[in-house]
């Protein structure tokens, strides 16, 4: 297929059909772990890894799986894959597993994985499915990292705290105290804060989209106008 197909897959995953902001899928892990930026990043990376594997396998077997039993088979594939990744990581990538390990069991309940298996991988070839997994996973990571950063900033007034857990002791300097003597706003860290911040992010995305549409409409009315920005 043409480059346009990849462009569409990538844009869908990152923005137009973003898992968290548009499809609102996988909210359980999203809301639970994004108490700081580093946790959001970790969950995003772990999910992306699983998603790439599951999309690849589901796409490879899509022609031999009868429609009636496809969902149980997808569940079997995803559950086996997650368990294997969990075991292999704890044996061979112990340091990384210590960081991402707590997120991996949560991935099993993330409907993003089965959602992409059903909506995309079971209908497209392997290359497209992997590209879709990378784009969706990246969009998910981006949304989670932003949500984590927002909650951490409002809640504790810091960014990148506990970066040493993911990038090693040398990364301690990454932690930024944005506001000094900040009176912690606990609501952002507690579950209600997750809903509030996610709501704000979705609203923010809609505002941006509406603005872009308006600009596109104006550009259409005045084709000779200097502003040639397009929507998207």
């Amino acid at each position, binding site marked *: 297929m043409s480059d346009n197909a990849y462009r569409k897959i990538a844009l869908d995953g990152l923005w137009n059909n973003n898992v968290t902001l548009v499809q609102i899928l996988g909210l359980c892990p999203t809301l*639970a*772990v994004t*108490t*700081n930026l580093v*946790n959001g990043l970790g969950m995003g990376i772990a999910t992306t890894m699983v998603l790439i594997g599951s999309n690849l396998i589901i796409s490879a077997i899509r022609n*031999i*799986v*009868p429609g*009636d*039993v496809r969902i*149980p*088979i997808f569940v*079997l*594939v995803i*559950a*086996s894959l997650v*368990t*294997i990744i969990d*075991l*292999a990581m*704890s*044996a*061979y990538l*112990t340091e990384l597993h210590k960081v991402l390990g*707590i997120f991996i069991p949560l991935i099993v309940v993330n409907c993003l994985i089965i959602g992409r298996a059903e909506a995309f991988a079971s209908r497209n070839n392997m290359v497209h499915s992997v590209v879709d997994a990378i784009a969706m996973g990246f969009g998910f990571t981006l949304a989670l990292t932003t949500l984590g950063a927002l909650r951490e900033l409002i809640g504790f007034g810091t960014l990148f705290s*506990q970066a*040493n*857990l993911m990038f090693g002791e040398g990364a301690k300097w990454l932690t930024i105290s944005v506001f000094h003597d900040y009176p*912690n706003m*606990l609501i952002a*860290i*507690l579950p209600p804060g997750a809903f509030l911040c996610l709501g704000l992010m979705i609203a923010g995305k809609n505002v941006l989209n509406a603005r872009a549409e308006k600009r596109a409409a104006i550009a259409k009315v005045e084709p000779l106008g200097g502003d040639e920005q397009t929507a998207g």
Partner: protein
Amino acid sequence: MFKKLLISGFLLAVFAGVGTAAVSFVHDNALPRITAVEKSQLLETLHQFVPPETFDNDMFSDTIEVHDAALLGTNDPITVYRARKNGAPVALVLTTIAPDGYSGDIKLLMGIRYDGSVAGVRVISHHETPGLGDRIEADRSPWIDGFAGKSLENPEEEQWHVKKDGGQFDQFTGATITPRAVVKAVANTLRYYEKHRDELFAPASEKPHE
């Protein structure tokens, strides 16, 4: 229709079989490595509590098993690693469970010096809320180091609570249950130690009766 049913069932069985086989294959291959990694991490932690120069025995083989559901938080036998120098007891390290965490058991590794003071406490595993209760981990906050050097005489036994409950240990903003559970488990383990000190250091050949 019947044929379709058979094919679907057959495929389902095949995928279940392949999935299970793959998981058990990886499990069998990974298990020895996971055990080895856990053991070397345990050794590293043991040395944090009890510096290698303070003892001269092999802590890994000088062990006994004990159990006390009330004070150690679990009915399962717990392995106690003992450090000695020239045969004289120096310290011991054991796992203990805080059964009343915010979500499930908090597994702790704890070193106790022969005089009954805490050599150190580390969290091995827990399911506390990320960002709130997980500050009991040494990597995330120095809170857990606050136990080092403490004993049931220092502070007084009634001070072994979080501040909210009138004790002298800090709780976390937004999380009281987690530190409360850990403080209680550490205090209980010290009580157990006080009650059973001589049995705990008894030579391996004369295991205490359970």
